[in-house]
């Protein structure tokens, strides 16, 4: 394809194995690039993927880069740094008495990443080595209490001695974590002043100091410490890598700022981003893309389902709002920072199936063969039958291979593995065994979807479901069968949907701030006014911070959208609900009542009416704010409908296994399908990077944007 249209947005999603690149032109054309990730020098893999997309558009590099308005980037750099324990050498100053915090891991970090079976099998639990070794931790005499009052003054000589000591040991940054510092940060701030002064006196003023009240100002000392330590451990190298990448792009002709995807879903300029905020950006693109398509089609409530090699990731866009998980886990470390709420279970193309030795029952997952050794049919060393092997045996995947034949598939090996390891022990035919693997994995995905919707207090018939990821179109008919959804949608670019999604993100920042508001059950106007004032003051501070930050990034006040949030819970509850506030300030008692009413309405919807508990009163220990500004987005080309006849895309018929028998099955080239075409199941629709498996009772309708609507007969 040679384009005459200027490329405007480019987004690269740097995964553990591959870097995907998605480019959109002014006229709405898409181009994809893919290249192996180069962890030692992210720019190299990034530029290779970019080149592939550029070549697909038939453009020269300078012409290509000069044309781009936005280059976005999402990476697992921080994750890799934490996983491999390759990073900086921070020292830690912590409230005296809590020096063992990182070694203790709250206990939970020794099992939080394990499977259901391993969690109740303690001999396989393990502590992880801490990011800061214990003898680089110093206790500082100081204490603030749970109301934010100082009860032990900061002992400044402790700080001075500790800094000198740590510098002698060779630290390259200093982290400060004090209890309750998110309520009153004066001890941490004073500590920073002393640290910087000491460092200056020691001639090492380049050593940075990170405060927990600045990096992660939220309740819970371990997640707050983890976030701050990760920023110190992985941040400097991550930010240096981003600088190098931006400079490479600029040298090639790009004139804008490199934008980085954040875990909470928005883009931010690489120069202004905090590494920890980018740590979990991987699954975010899919959700952002889902919301964007919702806007395109006019749907406010959507389910994103991403079927990859190892996991099935589900997220919800409800009434245009993407849920936020405030307690995510990164590489086994508990964090306290906003991340788009994505629910993952171990189910994907690489999921392994086996027969349980004790009961003789069929077990599918959660273990995965991953990309190495991979499914048996890849011929890369895998010996255990996987979901992909079952898809191949049943005739759904093209035996000539994936990626237009670049990845060959060994059908015989897949058949043999399923025959010996599944079919014979169960006394089933080869095909029924393979079909069984699919049914079990589809059932798990289905219950995950329906469970999440009910967990969030919603009804399936309010939602449109989007299926993507390399294996999404292959299983979407299975996991949505007979679900009363408003619609089911998938795409020819399903395998690169996350990169597409990220390219549609806005500029966004999330801010949180602790408050200490307890509202009694029968609060009068006076009590509400006092509480409301505190909340308003916190919102005001956050707004100032947001406006200042966005100004640095080039946005004036008018272009910034502000959404205030209150984290509300019933008295003494331990979990709060992020409640979008109906008012921007609580100036009257009724303003706060309206915030509480919004919480009550949300609570009844998310849980159940019977779970409401207003007689406990309310607590608001944190408020938040989202500041967003619009970014140039890919245009979607609307094409005229060309009739329902899809025969021009039909290229062959091969047998596939449906409902207990082999039947001739038409196979279509996805790129040849035209708007308006309808394909009746059973059928298989192939794209280079994905395959849509249309079961006998389903149909596929291509719409004006080349998206595919899956119907139920």
């Amino acid at each position, binding site marked *: 394809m040679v384009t005459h249209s200027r490329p405007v947005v480019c987004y690269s999603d740097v995964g553990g194995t591959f870097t995907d690149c998605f480019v959109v032109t002014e006229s709405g054309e898409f181009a994809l690039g893919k290249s192996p990730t180069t962890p030692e020098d992210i720019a190299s893999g990034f530029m290779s993927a970019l080149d592939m997309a550029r070549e697909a558009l038939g453009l020269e590099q300078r012409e290509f880069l000069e044309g781009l308005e936005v280059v976005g980037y999402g990476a697992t750099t921080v994750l890799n740094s934490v996983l491999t324990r390759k990073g900086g050498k921070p020292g830690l100053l912590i409230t005296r008495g809590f*020096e063992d915090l990182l070694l203790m891991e709250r206990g939970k970090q020794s099992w939080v990443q394990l499977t259901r079976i391993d969690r109740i099998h303690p001999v396989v639990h393990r502590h992880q080595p801490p990011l800061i070794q214990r003898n680089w931790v110093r206790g500082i005499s100081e204490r603030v209490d749970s109301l934010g009052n100082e009860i032990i003054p900061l002992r400044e000589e402790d700080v001075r001695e500790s800094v000198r000591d740590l510098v002698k040991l060779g630290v390259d940054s200093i982290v400060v974590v004090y209890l309750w510092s998110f309520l009153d940060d004066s001890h941490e701030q004073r500590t920073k002043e002393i640290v910087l002064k000491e460092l200056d006196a020691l001639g090492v003023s380049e050593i940075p100091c990170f405060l927990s009240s600045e990096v992660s100002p939220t309740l819970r000392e371990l997640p707050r410490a983890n976030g701050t330590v990760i920023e110190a451990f992985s941040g400097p190298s991550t930010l240096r890598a981003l600088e190098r990448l931006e400079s490479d792009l600029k040298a090639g002709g790009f004139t804008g700022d490199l934008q980085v995807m954040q875990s909470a879903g928005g883009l931010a300029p690489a120069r202004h981003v905090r590494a920890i905020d980018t740590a979990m950006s991987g699954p975010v693109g899919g959700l952002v893309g889902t919301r964007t398509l919702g806007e395109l089609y006019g749907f406010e409530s959507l389910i994103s389902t991403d079927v990859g090699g190892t996991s099935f990731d589900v997220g919800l866009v409800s009434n245009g709002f993407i849920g936020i998980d405030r307690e995510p886990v990164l590489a086994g470390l508990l964090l306290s920072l906003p991340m788009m709420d994505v629910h993952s279970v171990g189910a994907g193309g690489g999921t392994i199936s086996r027969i349980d030795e004790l009961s003789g*029952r069929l077990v599918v997952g959660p273990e995965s063969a991953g990309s190495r050794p991979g499914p048996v049919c890849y011929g890369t060393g895998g010996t255990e039958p996987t979901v992909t092997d079952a898809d191949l045996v049943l005739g759904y995947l093209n035996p000539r291979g994936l990626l237009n034949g670049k990845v060959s598939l060994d059908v015989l090996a897949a058949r043999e593995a399923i025959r010996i390891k599944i079919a014979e022990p169960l006394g089933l035919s080869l095909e029924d065994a393979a079909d069984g693997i699919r049914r079990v994995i589809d059932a798990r995905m289905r219950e995950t979807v*329906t469970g999440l919707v009910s967990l969030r207090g919603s009804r399936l018939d309010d939602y449109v479901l989007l299926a993507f990821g390399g294996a999404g179109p292959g299983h979407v008919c299975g996991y949505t069968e007979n679900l009363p959804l408003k619609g089911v949608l998938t795409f020819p670019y399903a395998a690169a949907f996350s990169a597409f999604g990220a390219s549609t993100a806005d500029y966004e920042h999330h801010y949180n701030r602790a408050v200490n508001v307890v509202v009694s059950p029968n609060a009068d106007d006076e009590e509400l006014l006092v509480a409301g004032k505190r909340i308003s003051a916190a919102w005001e501070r956050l707004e100032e911070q947001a406006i200042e930050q966005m100004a640095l990034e080039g946005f004036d006040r008018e272009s910034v959208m502000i959404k205030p949030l209150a984290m509300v819970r019933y*008295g003494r509850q331990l979990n709060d609900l992020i409640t979008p506030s109906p008012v921007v300030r609580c100036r009257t008692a009724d303003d706060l009542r309206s915030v509480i009413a919004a919480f009550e309405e949300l609570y009844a919807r998310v849980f159940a009416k*019977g779970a409401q508990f207003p007689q406990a009163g309310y607590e608001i220990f944190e408020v938040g704010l989202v500041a967003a500004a619009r970014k140039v987005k890919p245009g979607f080309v609307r094409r005229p409908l060309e009739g329902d006849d899809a025969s021009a895309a039909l290229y062959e018929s091969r047998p596939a296994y449906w409902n207990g028998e082999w039947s001739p099955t038409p196979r279509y080239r996805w790129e040849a399908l035209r708007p308006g075409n309808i394909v009746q199941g059973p059928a298989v629709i192939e794209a280079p990077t994905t395959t849509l498996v249309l079961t006998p009772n389903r149909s596929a309708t291509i719409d004006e944007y080349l998206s595919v609507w899956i119907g139920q007969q």
Partner: protein
Amino acid sequence: MTMARRSLKDRLIESEELFRDTGVYESELTVKESDPVTFEVLFTRLLQTLTNAREVALSISASPSTREQGEIIFGLFTAEGDAVCLSTGLMIHVHTMSRAIKWMINNDYETKMGFREGDYFFNNDSFIGGGHPSDQMLMTPFFVDGELEGWIGGLTHVTETGAVEPGAMGSSFTSRFAEGLILPCMRIAADDELFYDFDVLVDRGVRSSISWLADNRAKLTGNLIIREKVKELLGEVGLDMYRKVCREYIEDTRRATHEKVRRSLFPGRYREVAWRGVTIKNLERLMHSPCELVVSREGRLSLSFEGLPSAQRQPFQATLPLFEGMLFNGLIQNIFYDLRYNDGTFLAIDLHVPYGSACNPDNIQLPTTLWGPAYGGMQACAQAVSRAYFAKGYREEVHASGPLTSGNLAGGKDQYGRHFGSQCFEFASSGMYATSFMDGLDTAFSDFNAEGDMGDAEIWEQQMPQVWLAREIRKDGGGFGKFRGGNGIHSLYMIPEGIEMEIGAFGSPPIFSTAGLMGGYPAAALRVWIGRGTDVQAQIEAGTPLPNTEGFDRSVPEFVDQVSAEWSCVLGQNVPTSSLEPYSLFSVVSGDGGGYGDPLLRAPIDIIRDVENGLSGVRVAADVYGVVVTKDARGNVGYDKEATDSLRAQHRRERLHRGVPAAEYKRIQRERVMAGDIPAPARAMYRDVMEISPIWADEFRTFWNLPEGFEVAE
């Protein structure tokens, strides 16, 4: 003509008779054999549903023990009350909710109360089901075409029950009436709505009702989610299929349980014992939990606890439902973790617990709060399983004893001016046992809940107003060994200014309660230090660094040296709650794990790591491990190889010198038994056990070759 519906009681009797007569729960697994895929798909959907419900309930709960420590479980039961499928969570309650449902059926609730859809029955009477009044279950029946087809149950552990002491788990209780509100299988909701008067009852009956009431809502919501989903599934597959697969899931697990035992454990008879005790006013007695495990060649497990002490007016004992729960919890963690555990696991095991013993009391007016020998019984059983694994060659599953549960309780008025009563559940992250290949994890495990989580101190300080001055890994707490036991937590609390509170603790008598294995040492014993009339306020004002550690000298902790106070030390950890004035200090420890193997075989590199991390002292390294630790000018820790070899050789020579041949040892000890030369708490135990169990008494006399009718001296 319409057939009269059979009562639930008749159905239960029939089901139990079938099992008793045939030894199987369901004779034919026709669905599993004819359609193994559908069999699995349905189970997958049920399991995911229970898991989802648990997630929701966790978000609603107000109990730190539920939200932070995951003390919550949901289950699906047959109409007769047998558990079909369970979520993750508190494995102790795999069977205890089943017991409560059966109790209602056997006690004619069906005719006297009537069961209707939307009804919810609450129970925290641990003689009926559950572990102690803190364990609170909510059960709801569901119906198809007017017939009760099954039950859903949810259980959480709440931290306040309105007991004599705040925090529900006081060590001073001498009767059930001290344990707070105990409500046996009461209907507390109809049409899925909780009764207002029940909220009022709880609100006026306990110090702080929020966690109890919010947890009720959490369980109700979880049950509701499961009920709707199960009914949807039932609509898809039909009633006959649903009933059949439920019975098959239980039978399938029963068979798999036998198979797991047959493959994993070496057949034979294994005996172990664990120790507990009572230290309350006017009663000081050692208690033992002897466990005999018999593994048959066919994979049948039989457990006998003949020789348990008698039940008495003290809280260190348990009901039979709890003891069953503890045992199955231990067996699931140690052997059956990879099964689809349900009541099939329970049916696969023969259990003998003497009636009238401290794990099966014959008087429901006795307190059963703190479990005592039931916890020991689980530890002894786990040790026996470890030896059976070892004999079979599965070294990777072999481990020493897990930590003793301990903790602290408090009540009063909190910093927000609200009444509170709670227990601090940070002990859920105690020290783990050492295994045959690695050290036990520090602060990460408890036997009663494998998913150990101590919770953040900031969360606890919101719930209980004490201020942590230190929260550290206990030094040298884990049992010494080639692989050391995991260390528990040491916490030092300060009572803040302006707070009225009473505080206490529970644990065990001052004995080694956690055994080592294969030459490993037991874990350290527990203790509480209380400092009244301290100079802490003056020290704060003077800017002196406050204490932050227990230090390495167990006899006088560093904080005792650093703070002038009227100090008292309670060995063991049983301290009834009492008021403490502001700036008082209260130091508690959680349990540590037992060690594995000879400490002289421990790799010096592991000792260096512990010294570097501040977890072990130089004195212990030399005296116990025979390792001479060195430090260079930069503070780097190492060891002197030559001096170490020499010291280890010296330790071995001293051992030989101290050693006594087994026959000689037995002769000396027999003389002591004959002469009554045994500490008083142990004499009291032996006299009690020999009285309650003639079988055990005969065996004791035979082993020591004592005269017929011999009795231990008073």
